[in-house]
């Protein structure tokens, strides 16, 4: 089976602005307690919109085994 893509946040550098959450079409990423963004990997479909929106460019798409 092909590897899937999931968003991954570098939480140390995240500025918790929430641009990713606004960009995500299915609400799979949210800012947690005003500190950094967390991805719900179970729901993330790997579309990459959050990666494009993140002003700090701290989201990377990671290949994971399906």
């Amino acid at each position, binding site marked *: 089976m092909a590897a899937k893509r999931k968003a991954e946040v570098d939480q140390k550098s995240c*500025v918790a602005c929430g641009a990713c959450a606004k960009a995500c079409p299915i609400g799979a990423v949210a800012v*947690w307690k005003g500190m950094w963004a967390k991805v719900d990997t179970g729901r993330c479909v790997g579309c990459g919109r959050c990666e494009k*929106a993140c*002003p700090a460019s701290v989201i990377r798409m990671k290949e994971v085994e399906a």
Partner: protein
Amino acid sequence: MKKKKWYDYLWIVSATYLILGFFNILFAWIGLLCFFIPLLLAIFGGDKLYCNRYCGRGQLFDLLGNKFHLSRKKDIPGFLRSKRFRYGFLIFFFIMFFQMLFNTYLVFQGTNSLKEAVTLLWTFRLPWNWAYHGTAAPWVAQFAFGFYSVMLTSTVLGLVTMALFKPRSWCVYCPMGTMTQTICKAKYSCMGCGRKKKYRREPLT
């Protein structure tokens, strides 16, 4: 697509605010809301709900950069998103803010007279006398000019970084954003201490 909520239109409020300041500087006082609401939400709510939902400025940059294609959408340089720059800018912003408050005080005291000007980027003094109609005490107007200068300066900086990098680049070094995130982190770690638990970074999920 997600359905738009009323708070997705707060960029209209932000834009209107900047425009009103051209006609009557006293409207600048309303901008205090953009200082107190995020801080109160961070202190009592423990989150960045303001940034994440209500901030019209962030929405405005998003709109101009994405819908109007006014952004190159390039990665922001590393130093601009470094902790050192973000906190350094916050401190600089605080110093300039207190200087503005001190100016207001000097006018209140009568030491200085009212200067009907807006200072852009803490340097360039723009005449702005048409926006003051002598309807308020001089110190009230002085604060309005000072506060509007802060708001206009941050908008200009935000527009420049929006154009050069990603639309919401301002949010990376926005003093309010840095401050609310710091409060949230402090609050969380304090809660951890209260429960006699060590503050640990949540594992990457």
